[in-house]
Each structure stands twice: as C-alpha cells, then as structure tokens.
C-alpha cells in the first residue's frame, strides 16, 4: 500500500490542505511547529480513528480555523485505488470509496481491518510509526528494561499484552501479599479461615465435653435410681411406723374390750325372732291405740254435729236424739255382753260366780293341818295305848277321827266350789278370778244398761206417740228392732241426706270402735304372753334388756372390726411390741418414726441435689445440641474455603497472566523470531559498518556478536544491555526495521518516521538514512525532518503550505 494523497478539511493547524505523495521515500520537511507531527497524527487518525479524548493529556487536534474536522487519504493497494475519508472527531463517519468505480464500500471498517491484517492499530503504531523521542529514550533505559523493550519488538503485540499483564499482576498483588502478616484481603481471608479451623478444633473439643456430660448424666441417673429406691424403702418404713402409731389407740381399745368380753357371754339372749315379734306387736298396739284415738275424735265430732240442729224439724231432732241415746246404750250393752260372753266361753255352763273371800281362803289354805293333826293324834293315841294311858289314848283316837272328819269336810267343800268352775282346775280358777270378777262387773253393768235401755226405748215410744207419729195400737205391735227400723226410716225420710250419712258414719264409727277394742285386747294378750316367755314383765323392761344385749354385741363386733382394721400383720407387730415394752410402746414408736422421718428428709435432700445436677447437665447438653456448634463452624469454614478458592483463582490467574504472555510470545524460538533476528543482524551490520554482525536469543536474552576479528579469539558476544548507548540505538533501530520488513502481511505498509534519527551522530544518521532509503524500495517511507540538508526538490516543504 502506498499513500498517494493527503487531503485535510480541518485538523489542528491544518485546514483545507492537500499533499501529493509521489515518492517511495517521501521527505516532509519543515522547521519546528510547522505541523510535522500533526500531519502524522492525521494519517494515523484516518486509518484508525481520531483521538476520542478519553485521556486528559491527549491532543485532540480541533481545527484552529473552525473548518470541519477530518479529511481523507488516497491510497493505492493491490486491490486498487481508494479514498479513505473520516469526518468528525467524536461521532466520526468513515467512508471508503473505490476510485475505480466511484462506489462507497458497504463495510469500510472491514476494508481497513483487512488492509492491515493481521495487525491492529496498536501493532501498526508500534512497528511502523517511529516516535521522535523513541531512540533518545532507549539510551536512558535500564539494562533489564532495554532487554524487555527489545524483546517486545522481536515479538510485536507482546508489549501491549505485557503492559496489560503487568496491570493484572498489580491487581493480584493488591489482593494478596506473599509476605507474612499482609493486610490485603486474601491475607485476611486466609487468616479468618485459620481462625475458623481453630474454632472447629474447639468445637470438636466441645464434643468431648458433650460425651463427658452424657456419661455423667448416665451416672447421675443411676445414682438417682438407687437413691429413689432407698427412699421408697425408707418411706415405706416411715409409713408403717405411722400406721402402728395410728393403730395404737385402737389396739389399746381392743385390749380393754377383750378383757371384759367373758361376762356377757353367759347372759340369755333375746332371739331375733322374739324381738321381731314383740316389736311387731308393740307397733301394732301403738297403731291400734292411735286408731282408737282417731276414731274417738271422729265419734265426738259426729256426735256434736248431730246434736246441733241441722235446720230440720224439732220433732225429728228430738226423735233423732232419743234414738241416738237409745242406740248408744244399746251398743254399750252389746259390748258388755260380748265381754261377758268372751269370759263365759271358758266355762261349760253359765258364768260362775267368782270366789268369795272365804271360798278363796278355803281353796288356797292347805289341807295339811288336818292331815298332820290326824297323823299326830293317831301316833299319840298309839303311844298312849302302849304306855297304858287308855284315857289319853281314847282322847287322841277321838281327836284323830275328828281330824279326818275335818279333812273330809274340807275336801268336799273344795270340790263343790271347783265344780262351779268346771272345766278349770284349781290354779286356773285362781288365776282367772280377776277376769271373772271383771265379767261379773260387766254383767252387772249390762243389767244396769239393760234397764237404762228399756227406759230409753220407752222414752222413744212415748215421743213417737207424743209427736203423733204413731198410734199407741200400732206401737204395741212393733218389736224393739222394728221400732228402731221404723224410726230410722222415719228419720231418713225426715232429715237431710247429709245428716243421714253422718248418722250412718256414726254407726260405722261405733262399730269400728268396738272392733278396735277387741283387737287391742287380743294384741295385749299376745304381747304379754311373749314378754312372759322372755322373762320380762313390761315392754320397758324388754327394751332395756334388748339395749344391753345390743351393747354387748357391739363390743364384740368392735373388737373384730379393730382387728380387721389394724390387720393381722400389724396386729402381730403391735402385740409383740406391747409384750416387750408394755405401755412404753407408743413412745418408742414415736422415737423410731422421728428417726425414719429424718432419714427420708436427708435422702430427699440428696436426691434434690442430684436432680439439680442432672438438670444442669441436661441444659448444658441441650445448649451443645442446639447451637449446632461444629456444624455451624464447618459450614462457615466451607463457605470461607469456597470464597478463598474463587478469590485465589482470580489472584493466580492475574498473577500468571504475565507468564502466559511471555510464553505465548517468547516461549518458543519461532520462525518469526528467527527471521526478525536474522534480518536485524544484517541491518545492524549495515548500520555499524560490520562491527556487529549477528543477533541471537539465548535463554531469553539478546546476544549481539561482534563481527570484527579479535586475534584468535573469534567473535565476542555482548549482551544487548552491555552495548554503548549509540550502539543500542542502532540495535533498536535494526530490530524495529527488521520487524517491519519481515512481517508477513498482505500489503507492504508505509513506515512513518518522525525525525527519529535527529540525535544520532552524523555518521550513524547517514547510515540510517541510507538503510531507510534502501528499505523504501519495498515499503513506502514518509520521513518527517527539519534537517535542511535533506531538502530537495522531491521534498514536500511544509512551511510553504
């Protein structure tokens, strides 16, 4: 590729400028500040883009005239001739026009990329564009840096990557310092990890504590179990003692009761059947009494209500009253008659008269007196006869006869009396005298009542006649019963229904009265018969005897109850203690109980202590189980490790970037490198007139060999850094030019040299210029200089523009 024209719209000091480049070695000359560097910047700007102004010290080349920023280059390359136009600095537009057909290319950037391939902007700037100060700087480089720079130029792009790699390394160093105790993030993170490791160990130690706690807990539980068992035993003992003490009064009571037990055993018992019968009869009696009382009340009420006139006629009332009086007497008579009949049923005949006082004496006095008198007088008569006392004997015989006669008379009399009471015997006769007397009294009463009844009946008949209810003739024909019947009918017809009913009720009550009386008598008889069987006279005596009997039974039962309550075992225990200690037993029991209580309390205290220890143990274990100690630390450690791995990966990558760059560019002595060095050697020989002839790379170091004969020693190798500053410049130049010339690129690219040789001495400058001109036959060279000696008619004079 060759640059044919440079057309500037506006760029720095240049505006509307036009240059035609028609030489392969085109000198552009002018004094300082004539715009040499600006022109070079313009060419680079059209090719690769104008400065964007990102860096503060960057020159922006805004046109001073105010003309439109930008311009174009006309180039010729293998594909043809093109105009490359770039207008505007910040949002520049690139246009590439093919001059053969006048068409704009659709992808101008791709065209430029292909034109310089495989170089990029940076490579072109580095290899084909020589800054004016570059060679002078080389002289000031340290040996190492010089080596580095030279090496970089043997492998283009390397410098750029090396710079970048150096930045990466700086980043890496900011992250981690190899020295101990660095305070950079990865050093701190590493130490944090170590700290976590320590914590982990501590947590593992805690696990041993946990196991120890578990072991301790097991022991404590065992101890507690044992204590608990012991305490249960002691408590049982205490309870037993307490029971014995509680049972003591009962025991004492049972002892006492047992002592008095023997006496009551002999007494006759009232049988439960008898008790039952007597109680029933007693109850029946009370019931009858109540009924009688109740009935009497009814009677009185009925009678009094009947006595009051109920609004009926006076006649009826009077008749009613008379009839009632009559019937009352009649009922009384009936009762008395019944009583008498009851007694007279005992005898076969009529009711006998009761015994008179004499008869009673006769019956009760013994007949022994007569028998004894007869016997005694008989004996005396015999004695007297034997003793010859005939007179006395006769007297006694007489007396004996008299006695027998008396006896016979008496017997006859008694017999006669008893005949009256047949079929009763003597005893029964005597016993029933009272009843008999009562019966006679009743009989007497009955007779009185009978006469009274006759009077009442007469009064009733009289009244009926008086009131003209009946004729006397009619009345005579009526028997007593018919009279009664007639009167009732009359009254029923003449009195109210209610009164009639009351009268009927009254009659009924009267009948009931007499029935109840009968029942009461029967009950009394049965009751007293039973009481006599039980050898008691009255009910009160019976109940007293019963009470005593129950009390005795209760005593016996109580002893049994106490025995059951205390229990056989306890009873035996108390018995044994009582036999041993007597009355002191209770006191001894109390002492033993107090001791047992103390023992239980002591054990409870111990148990409480153990329980507390166990609770503490459990809470300590729970704490260890809960906080998950080890797990948490292990997770933290794992997280920390994960972060460290990632961060150290970055650190290592950044640290190794430089080595990778070096390896990529310098690692192997590739053909490219060899070709550059060989070409550089040739250029160096030319530049130094054969003083140095060969450049080689030995173990990453550039070695320059002298071509001059040194006696028999042959060629002498120098390390690049060992050369004089002038020779260094040439070596640098040789390598730079060799690189440009050996690059395998599509197009031979123009070299842009900006007064690069200004500080070389004359001889060297001439050598360099000669070399450049030689090179220009292959690659176009644009050479900016203020060296007027190079001015020629071919030179473009910039000051003239």
């Amino acid at each position: 590729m060759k640059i044919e024209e440079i057309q500037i719209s506006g760029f720095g000091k240049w505006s509307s400028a036009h240059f035609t480049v028609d030489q392969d070695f085109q000198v552009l000359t002018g004094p300082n500040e004539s715009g040499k560097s600006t022109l070079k910047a313009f060419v680079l700007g059209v090719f690769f883009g104008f400065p964007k102004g990102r860096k503060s010290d960057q020159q922006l080349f805004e046109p001073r005239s105010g003309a439109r920023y930008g311009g174009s280059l006309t180039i010729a390359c293998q594909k043809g001739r093109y105009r490359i136009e770039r207008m505007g600095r910040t949002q520049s537009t690139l246009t590439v026009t093919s001059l053969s057909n006048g068409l704009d290319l659709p992808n101008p950037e791709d065209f430029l990329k292909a034109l310089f391939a495989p170089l990029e902007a940076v490579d072109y700037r580095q290899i084909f564009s020589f800054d004016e100060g570059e060679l002078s700087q080389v002289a000031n480089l340290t040996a190492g840096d010089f080596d580095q720079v030279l090496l970089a130029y043997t492998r283009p792009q390397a410098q750029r990557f090396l710079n970048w790699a150096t930045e990466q390394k700086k980043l890496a160093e900011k992250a981690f310092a190899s020295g101990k105790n660095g305070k950079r993030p990865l050093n701190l993170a590493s130490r944090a990890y170590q700290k976590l490791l320590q914590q982990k160990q501590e947590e593992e130690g805690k696990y041993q504590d946990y196991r120890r706690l578990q072991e301790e807990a097991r022991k404590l539980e065992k101890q507690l179990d044992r204590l608990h068992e012991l305490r249960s035993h002691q408590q049982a003992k205490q309870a037993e003692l307490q029971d014995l003490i509680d049972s003591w009064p009962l025991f004492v009571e049972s002892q006492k009761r047992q002592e008095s037990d023997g006496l009551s055993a002999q007494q006759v018992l009232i049988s439960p059947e008898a008790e039952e019968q007597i109680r029933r009869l007693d109850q029946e009696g009370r019931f009858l009494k109540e009924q009688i009382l109740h009935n009497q009340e009814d009677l009185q009420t009925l009678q009094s209500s009947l006595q009051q006139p109920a609004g009926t006629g006076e006649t009826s009332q009077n008749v009613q009253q008379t009839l009632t009086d009559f019937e009352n007497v009649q009922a009384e008579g009936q009762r008395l008659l019944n009583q008498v009949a009851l007694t007279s049923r005992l005898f076969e005949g009529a009711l006998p008269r009761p015994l008179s006082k004499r008869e009673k004496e006769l019956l009760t006095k013994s007949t022994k007196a007569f028998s004894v008198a007869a016997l005694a007088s008989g004996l005396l008569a015999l004695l007297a006869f034997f003793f010859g006392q005939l007179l006395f004997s006769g007297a006694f015989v007489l007396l004996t006869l008299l006695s027998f006669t008396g006896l016979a008379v008496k017997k006859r009399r008694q017999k006669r009396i008893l005949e009256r009471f047949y079929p009763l015997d003597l005893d029964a006769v005597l016993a029933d005298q009272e009843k008999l007397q009562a019966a006679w009294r009743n009989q007497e009463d009955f007779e009185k009542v009978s006469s009274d009844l006759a009077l009442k009946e007469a009064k009733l008949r009289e009244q009926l006649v008086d009131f003209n209810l009946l004729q006397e003739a009619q009345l005579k024909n009526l028997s007593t019963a018919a009279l009664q019947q007639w009167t009732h009918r009359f009254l029923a017809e003449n009195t109210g229904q209610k009164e009639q009913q009351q009268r009927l009720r009254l009659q009924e009550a009267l009948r009931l009265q007499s029935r109840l009386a009968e029942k009461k008598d029967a009950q009394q008889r049965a009751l007293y018969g039973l009481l006599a069987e039980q050898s008691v006279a009255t009910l009160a005596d019976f109940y007293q005897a019963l009470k005593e009997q129950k009390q005795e039974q209760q005593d016996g039962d109580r002893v049994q109850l106490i025995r059951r309550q205390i229990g056989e075992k306890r009873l035996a225990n108390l018995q044994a203690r009582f036999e041993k200690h007597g009355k002191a037993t209770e006191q001894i029991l109390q002492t033993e109980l107090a001791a047992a209580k103390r023992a239980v309390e002591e054990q409870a205290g111990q148990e409480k202590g153990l329980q507390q220890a166990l609770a503490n143990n459990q809470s300590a274990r729970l704490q260890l189980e809960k906080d998950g100690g080890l797990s948490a630390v292990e997770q933290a450690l794992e997280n920390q490790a994960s972060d460290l791995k990632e961060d150290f990966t970055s650190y290592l990558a950044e640290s190794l970037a430089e080595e990778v760059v070096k390896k990529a560019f310098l690692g192997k002595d590739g053909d490219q490198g060899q070709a550059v060095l060989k070409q550089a050697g040739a250029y160096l020989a030319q530049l130094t007139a054969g003083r140095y002839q060969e450049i080689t790379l030995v173990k990453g170091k550039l070695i320059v060999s002298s071509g001059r004969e040194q006696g028999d020693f042959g060629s002498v190798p120098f390390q690049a850094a060992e050369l004089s500053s002038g020779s260094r410049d040439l070596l640098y130049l040789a390598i730079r030019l060799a690189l440009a010339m050996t690059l395998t690129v599509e197009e031979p690219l123009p070299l842009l040299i900006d007064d690069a040789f200004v500080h070389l001495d004359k001889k060297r400058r001439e050598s360099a210029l000669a070399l450049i001109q030689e090179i220009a036959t292959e690659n176009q060279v644009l050479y900016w200089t203020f060296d007027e000696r190079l001015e020629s008619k071919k030179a473009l004079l910039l000051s003239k523009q």
Partner: protein
Amino acid sequence: MLSFIHAGDVHLGNPMSGLSRNLPNNWQEAVQSAGYQAFDKLIDAAVNQRVDFVLFPGDLLNGAGQSAKVQATLLRGFLKLQKAGVQVVLSFGNHDYEAFSEASLAWPENVHVFGHEVEEIVLKAKDGQRVAFVGFSYADRAERRDRLADFPNKGANVDYAIGLYHGMQGKPGDDYAAFSLDAMLKKGYDYWALGHIHQRAVLHEEPTIAYSGNLQGLNRKETGAKGAYLVKEEGGRLLSTFLDLAPLRFEEKVLDNPSGLLDLLKELQGTSFEQPTLLSLRLQGSIGEELRLAAAQGDLLEKVQQAFLGSTDFWPIHFFVEEKVSVSKPAFAAIDFDEAIEQTVGTESLLNLLSDEVPLAIREYFSEEEGQAAVTLKLRQLFEQGEGSDEN
C-alpha cells in the same frame, strides 16, 4: 406386607460446599438446617408409612460425626423409630467409617449395625416375615477387597434377602468396593440398597439394584429433588417410590443468548421454583457484551444477587459463562494463549505463588485438577477480555 425405606448417603452434619460467606442470613440458616430437617422428615415418613425397616447403606454421617447436634438428632430419630416399632439397619461407608467405633454407644436396641466383615442379620418384619439383611461397614476411607464375594446367597429359611452395599461399579481393586451387577444378581437377593453415588439411579429392575442418591444436595453439582426410596411389597413384588425429602435444592438454569442484565433479571423473575433453591446460572449462545464484561470483572453474580436480596424462592450462587468459541492467535505470537495457559498452569507455578499463609486446603485444591482447571478457565476469560480492551 414388607415395607422399608432405603436412604443412602444422608451425610448428616455435612456442610454444603461452593457457597459464600456472604450468603444472606435467611439462606445461611436454611443451608445449616437443611440436612437435619431432611433427616427428621425421613424419620417422620418412616413412622407415617409404618414401615418395617429403615436402611442406611453407608455415609449416614460426615466423618466421625463428633457433633452434639448430629448425635442428638440421630438419637432422637432412632428413638422415635423404636417407639413406632421400626428397626434400623445400618452400615458405615467411606465418609463415616470413623464413626463406627463410638456410633452405637448410646443408640437404642432397634438399631442394627454391620461390623467390618460381611455379616447377615435376620430380622422379623411386623407381619412376622423373616428378612435377611447382608452388609458390612468400611474400616478405612477405601475398601479395595472384593466384598461381594463374601455375601452369602439368599437362604431358604428366610422370606426376603436384602443387600446393603456402599460402593460403585468397577474393576476389582478400585477404591470403593467395586462390584458388578452380574455378581450381585447371582446372590438371588430381593433388593440391593446401594450407597456412595449421590445421583439417584436404578441400575437393575426385578430385583431392584438402586442408589437412592443423597438425602440432601450438598453442592451445585447435586441438582434436583433429593430424598430416599420407599419400598413396599405389592403382589409379591418389591416396588419402590421416590420420597422427596430435601427442603433445599440446588438447580442449574440455562439462559440462551442473554442480551443484557435487565433481560436476565426479567427471566429470573418469571421463573418459579418448587422448593427454596440455590441457583447456578449458565449463560450460553450469544452473550451480551455487558454481561460478558461483568462476568469477566467478577461482579455479575453480585449484581444479580443485589437484585434478588430478600428472595426466599431462590438465591443465585454461581455463574457459568460459556467462552467465546475462538480465541484467535495473536499476530506474532509463537503459540496461542490457550496453549500458553495450558503450559503455564501447573502445580509448581501455582504453589509458588501461594505462601504458607494460604490455608493448606486451598493449596491442596490448587495442586489438584479441579483448582488448576478453575485457574485455567479464569485465565482464558481474562485473556478474552484483555484482547478486547485498548490499552492505548
């Protein structure tokens, strides 16, 4: 009806790896409790399903299990099973072989532990059926002997024979009790409960030879639902169903051709998750420059995390950005950067850069393939990015 739960690789107390110390508190807590919760759920499932047995074929614990919380959790679980009449059959694997010595100290009587030699334990199911369990515990971190040879064939005096086996398919002499399916099938067992591989897998059906996978995912490679197998006899066959027990999941989401951060956030917002999820994101295809740059600078993850602070559904934990297909060889370079990176990254070069202060575990990581691969990847990303930046 015989029923049991097969729970391999519980790894109780095992920390999750690949997470950051910058995990938000709620996620930190979830991470810390997930394993324990999963175990409790396992126990509850066994009780609720009224199974006869729970089988743990190795790696129930992490290391020696010397943690109060771990031991208390185990004991509580075992006692609960005992109360429910469930028996536990347990062998130790390569991760928890150290726990063997003190394991059974305080464990209740319903827990049956295999010794270091292959042994047979015959137990009665609730319905009275006789079940022979055969297994062994690891005595060391590796088991290179042919353990399967010692397993007896199924006996005539039992109704079922079940093998507990912690190992993996392979050739004799491999580290983890290598076995072959053929050899297993020849034993005539009714079920093989395998442990060691964390990925759930059925290697053979009728009889089943299966890994239940681990109970709870432990890192971003262990994705998806995790749990145990519930095995029940039905019609004379043992049928297994998967029980999803892990309360926390690791998942990977692939995003094709993400243009920018905003798009990416939108897509994430529209994604639903079955369980609280620790999410890895894989960006592939044509990746927007903004994303690529953020990824290279290492703050992409942080930016996404910032957007989802307080999220309880998921938490982004990792980005994987696919490399550009071609990293062209720079002009003039002797070799391309990939090659140079390959040549540069090695144990020596890495360890030289790491002083003693760097924890041993980290230095070990970089001396191993995984760490070196990470550095290689990072370098590639750096150079990819470095190439595009203009240093002038």
